[in-house]
C-alpha cells in the first residue's frame, strides 16, 4: 500500500492510530488510462454487452431471429418446473465434483511422485502433460471409439458383465467416460500446477524435518500441504468452474445420451437453444447457470481464503 500520508474523510476516534485509506489519492499517469480503458470498453462490447443481451432475451419469446414479444418471467417459471433442466444441473454438479476431486487428488499425487527421487523425471513430466495439449473434441472422438468397441470386447473376453456392453449406451454408466476423459486431461494441468507449487518449497525444510525423524505422511500433511495452500485454492476454483462448463466432452462422447442422462447444462443450452429453436427458454437457463457459477465461486473463494497461510 502506497501513499500512506493521505487520509480519507473517515472519522475515527482520536485515540486510534491514523487510519490509512485503502485507496490512494495520487495522480495517475494518463497513459495508464489509455492502456486499460479501451480494453475495458472492448471487453464490455464483446462480453458484457452480449451477456446483457442474452439475459434480456430470456424475458422474451424470441427464436434468435425474426420478431418476438416480451413475456416477463414465463420462461423462468416454466424452467423451474422442467425436470430435464433440473436433471442437467444435478448431473453437471455431480460430474463437476467428481472431476474436480479426481483431477486435484490425482494431480497432487502425481506431482509428489514426480518431485521425488525417480529417474527420467523430465521425460515423465513431459509425457504426463501431453493430454493437455490435445483438443478435447478430437481426443474425445478417440475415447468414444475405445469405449464403444475394444473395451466391451475386452470385457466380454474377461467375462466382466458391466464392461461387456458399451458404457456410453448404459444410462447408469454413461457418466463414467465423460468423467474419465475430463480427469485424463485435467490431471495434466493440475499435476504441473502442483509440481510448480512443490518446487517453491525450500528443500531445507524437508532436511530439517528429516533430522527430527518425520514420516512421509507427516511430511506431506504438516509441511507440504499447508505451504502449497494458495495453489490448492486457485486450482480448485478453476477446476470446478471448468468442469461445470463441460461441453466438448459431452459433444464428442455421448451427445447428452442415453435418453438425456448425460446432458450437462452447457450442452442443453447449446442443443435446445440453438439447435431446436428454444432460444429464449434456454437463455433463462443460461442466466440461472451464471448465477449458480458466480455464487459457487464466491463461496469457494471465501472458504479457501480463510484457510490459506500465505
Amino acid at each position, binding site marked *: *500500500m502506497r501513499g500512506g500520508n493521505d487520509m480519507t474523510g473517515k472519522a475515527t476516534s482520536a485515540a486510534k492510530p491514523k487510519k490509512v485509506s*485503502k*485507496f*490512494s489519492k*495520487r495522480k*495517475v*499517469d494518463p*497513459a*495508464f*488510462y489509455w492502456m*486499460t480503458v479501451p*480494453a*475495458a470498453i*472492448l*471487453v464490455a462490447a464483446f*462480453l458484457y*454487452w*452480449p451477456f446483457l443481451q*442474452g439475459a434480456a*432475451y430470456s424475458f422474451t419469446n424470441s427464436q*434468435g431471429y425474426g420478431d418476438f414479444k416480451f413475456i416477463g418471467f414465463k420462461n423462468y417459471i416454466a424452467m423451474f418446473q422442467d425436470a430435464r433442466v433440473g436433471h442437467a444441473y444435478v448431473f453437471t454438479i455431480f460430474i463437476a465434483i467428481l472431476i474436480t476431486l479426481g483431477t486435484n487428488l490425482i494431480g497432487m499425487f502425481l506431482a509428489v511422485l*514426480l*518431485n521425488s*527421487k525417480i*529417474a527420467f523425471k*523430465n521425460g*515423465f513430466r*513431459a*509425457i*504426463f*502433460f*501431453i493430454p*493437455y*495439449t*490435445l*483438443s*478435447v*473434441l*478430437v*481426443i474425445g*472422438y*478417440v475415447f468414444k*471409439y475405445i469405449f464403444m468397441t*475394444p473395451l466391451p470386447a475386452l470385457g466380454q473376453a474377461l467375462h466382466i458383465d458391466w464392461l461387456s456392453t458399451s458404457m456410453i449406451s448404459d444410462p447408469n454408466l454413461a457418466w463414467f467416460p465423460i468423467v474419465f476423459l475430463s480427469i*485424463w486431461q485435467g490431471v495434466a494441468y493440475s499435476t*504441473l500446477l502442483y509440481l*510448480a507449487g512443490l*518446487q*517453491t518449497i525450500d*528443500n531445507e525444510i524437508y532436511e530439517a524435518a528429516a533430522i527430527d525423524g518425520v514420516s512421509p505422511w507427516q511430511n506431506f500433511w504438516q509441511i507440504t500441504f499447508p505451504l502449497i495452500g*494458495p495453489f490448492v485454492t486457485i486450482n480448485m476454483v478453476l477446476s470446478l*468452474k471448468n468442469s461445470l*462448463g463441460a*461441453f*466438448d466432452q459431452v459433444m464428442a462422447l455421448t451427445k447428452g445420451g442415453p435418453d438425456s442422462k448425460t446432458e450437462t447444462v*452447457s450442452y442443453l443450452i447449446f442443443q435446445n437453444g*440453438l439447435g431446436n429453436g428454444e432460444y429464449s427458454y434456454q437463455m433463462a437457463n443460461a442466466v440461472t*447457470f*451464471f448465477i449458480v457459477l458466480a455464487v459457487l*465461486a464466491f463461496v469457494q473463494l471465501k472458504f479457501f481464503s480463510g484457510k490459506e497461510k500465505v
Partner: protein
Amino acid sequence: MTSANASIATKGSTNTTKYRKDRNINWWLTAAVAVLSLTVLVPLYFTVVTALKTPGEAGTFTLPTTWEWHNFVDAWNKVNYPKAALNSAIITVCAVVLTLLTNTFVAYAVARNMDKRFFRFLYYFFLAMMFVPFTVIMLPIAKEMGSLHLDNQLGLIILYTILGIGSNLFIAIGFIRSIPVSLEEATRIDGASTWRIFWTVIFPLMGPINATIAILTALWAWNDFLLPLITLTDQSNQTIPLAQYVFQSQFTSNYPMAFASYLMAMAPVLIVYVFAQKWVVGGVMRGAVK
C-alpha cells in the same frame, strides 16, 4: 511470495542437480510412475495403430497386419487438411501476437495502480470475465459478429484476444508486481513516457510470463472448437477441430480414415511439443506461481 517468485527459476535447477548428484534413485517409484504413464500412452498408441489398419481390422489393440498409409492421404483430401491447417495457423499465430501486444500492457497498468479505486475496480471487472459461461453469450456474440461482418478469421482473432484478457491478467499480475518499481523510476527520470517504459523495460522483463501467455493462448486458439463453430460462417475458414466435427458424420464406418484424420489433427501440436517440451512445461509451471 515475491522471493519464491524470483527464485523459481533457480530453485528448479537446483533441485534437479541435487538429485542428479544424489544417485539415490527409487526404482520402485520409477516403475510405478512408468506404469501410470501408460494411461497417457495407450490411447495415443491406439490412435496410431487404428489409423494404419483396414476398416475390417479396426477395433483391437493389436498392431496392424498391413500398414495402410493411404488412410492418411484419404483423410488429408477429404477434410481438406491443408486449408484447415492454414486457417488454424493464421488464427493461432495472430491471436498469440495480438494478445502479447495488448493483454500485457493492460496487466501492467492494473498491476501498477492497484492502490487506486478505479484500477481496483478494473481488476475485478476483468477477472469476472472468467466466470461468465460461454453458453450465455454464444448466440448474442454470433449475432454481433455477423452484423459487424466479423464472422471470419479476423473476428475469431479479435475474440481470442479480447476474451483472454481476464485469465492473462490473472496469470501476469503477480509476476509484474514482483518487478521492482525502481527500474521504471530510473528510466522515468531520463524523461521516458509510460508507454516507452513499458516497451523498453517491462515487456522484455516479462519474457518468462509472456512465454506462458503465449503457450496458453496458442493451445486455446489451436484446439478450440466452440468459438469457431459459432463464429465462422464459410466452411473454407474452418479450423482443424471444427473440420473434425463437421466431417465426423461423413466418415461413416471408415474408422481408420477417421483416426488418421484425428492423428493429423493432433500432430502439429504434438510435434511442436516434442521439440519445445521443456519450454512449454516450464512456461505453464511458471504461470502457476501467482
